[in-house]
């Protein structure tokens, strides 16, 4: 019966991507599984070539939150760069030193602001 309850409430959609040098996606995969277990639909996009590709994916998938995992060499403010093009979609960046719990919390809080 738990599944039935999952069907009736609206599921938050999250796009999870990586930008920069491939840093290994073990953390991102665990984050994706944790979110799924919280009832979230996670679009797992993997490594993206450019910010514009992230914008396009977020638009097509009509997600509530985009989580961008950055490699350590990246210091840019992703949400400042593309947030303007994605009205209604929250963009959060996941620093390379974040734990899974921290990443999940950041995404959950961004999703909650929507409501």
């Amino acid at each position, binding site marked *: 019966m738990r599944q039935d309850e999952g069907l009736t409430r609206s599921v938050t959609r999250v796009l999870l991507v990586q930008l920069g040098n491939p840093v290994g996606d073990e953390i991102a995969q665990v984050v*994706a*599984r944790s979110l799924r277990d919280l009832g979230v639909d996670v679009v797992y*996009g993997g490594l993206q*070539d450019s910010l514009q590709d992230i914008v396009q994916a977020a*638009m097509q998938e*009509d997600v509530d939150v985009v989580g961008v995992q950055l490699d350590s060499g990246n210091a840019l403010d992703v949400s400042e760069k593309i947030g303007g093009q994605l009205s209604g979609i929250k963009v959060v960046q996941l620093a390379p030193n974040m734990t899974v719990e921290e990443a999940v919390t950041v995404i959950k809080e961004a999703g909650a602001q929507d409501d």
Partner: protein
Amino acid sequence: MIKDVLAGDVRAIAKMISRAEAAKPEDRDALAEVFRHAGKAHVIGLTGVPGSGKSTLAGVLGLEIRKSGRTVGIVAIDPSSPFSGGAILGDRLRMTGLAGDDGVFIRSMATRGAMGGLARASLEAVDVLDAAGFDIVLIETVGVGQDEVDIVQAAHTVVVVSAPGLGDEIQAIKAGVLEIADIHVVSKSDRADAAATAADIRGMLGLGPTRHEDDWQVPVVPTSAEAGEGIEDLVAAMDAHRKHLSDTGAIEQRRRDIIGMRVLKTAEDIIRKDFKGNREQLAVLIDRVMAREIPPREAAERLLESFKKS
């Protein structure tokens, strides 16, 4: 909103698909309007067991279709967790090289408990992409196991993907997946055992019944996404099948089958939803079946009677 969808606006298309998924009563008119404008696209179903390389193939197919100047929408379906209701939608990951092209629209969908390899709103998503003017719409199903082949009544052309070495030939026979194909693909054809898999499929095609009473010869197309081989042949086979449906008039029967399936499926959804809203009556009936006073069938008939009255 409708105007923007028809004009191909990305945000409008995406939001309309979300509305189809949410299935709120206030969005019915908009979706009905979308449906009225759909019906032009060539709808292609891509199915096969998990690990057969459907997503990768969908990606390279998208690129090949774009080379011919046509646009393509892709609806990629993954299963929802039966425990949390959430899902990991990972097909997009394998569709590389399509980013940055306005002629391609990829949308991931979760099954949310629907069986048969499709999500409840999959075909409404196809309507949206169709109405938005995409020439070809690919539906990538959940990796089908056994007896989960709704795609056969959801697409004009059904492509069944098999990979060599998965030992899935026997599985395919069990699942009835072999018979539903309009086109067979043997993926990963750069592998040494691919030729044997293709030969197996060709051999089995000669034996069993098919859905092709007319003279369509089901082709077996070896493809290698990695080496970029066979993709052109596959697009040619899909185009040939579409032309065959038109030339023989079979397209009308396919369309009828699709609509018939959708009406029945939607009726099931409505009934199931209504029953869930009436848990008390259901609980009473379950009690009686538990006590073996009545069999499940009688309980079901009583539920349906109360549904008709309401």
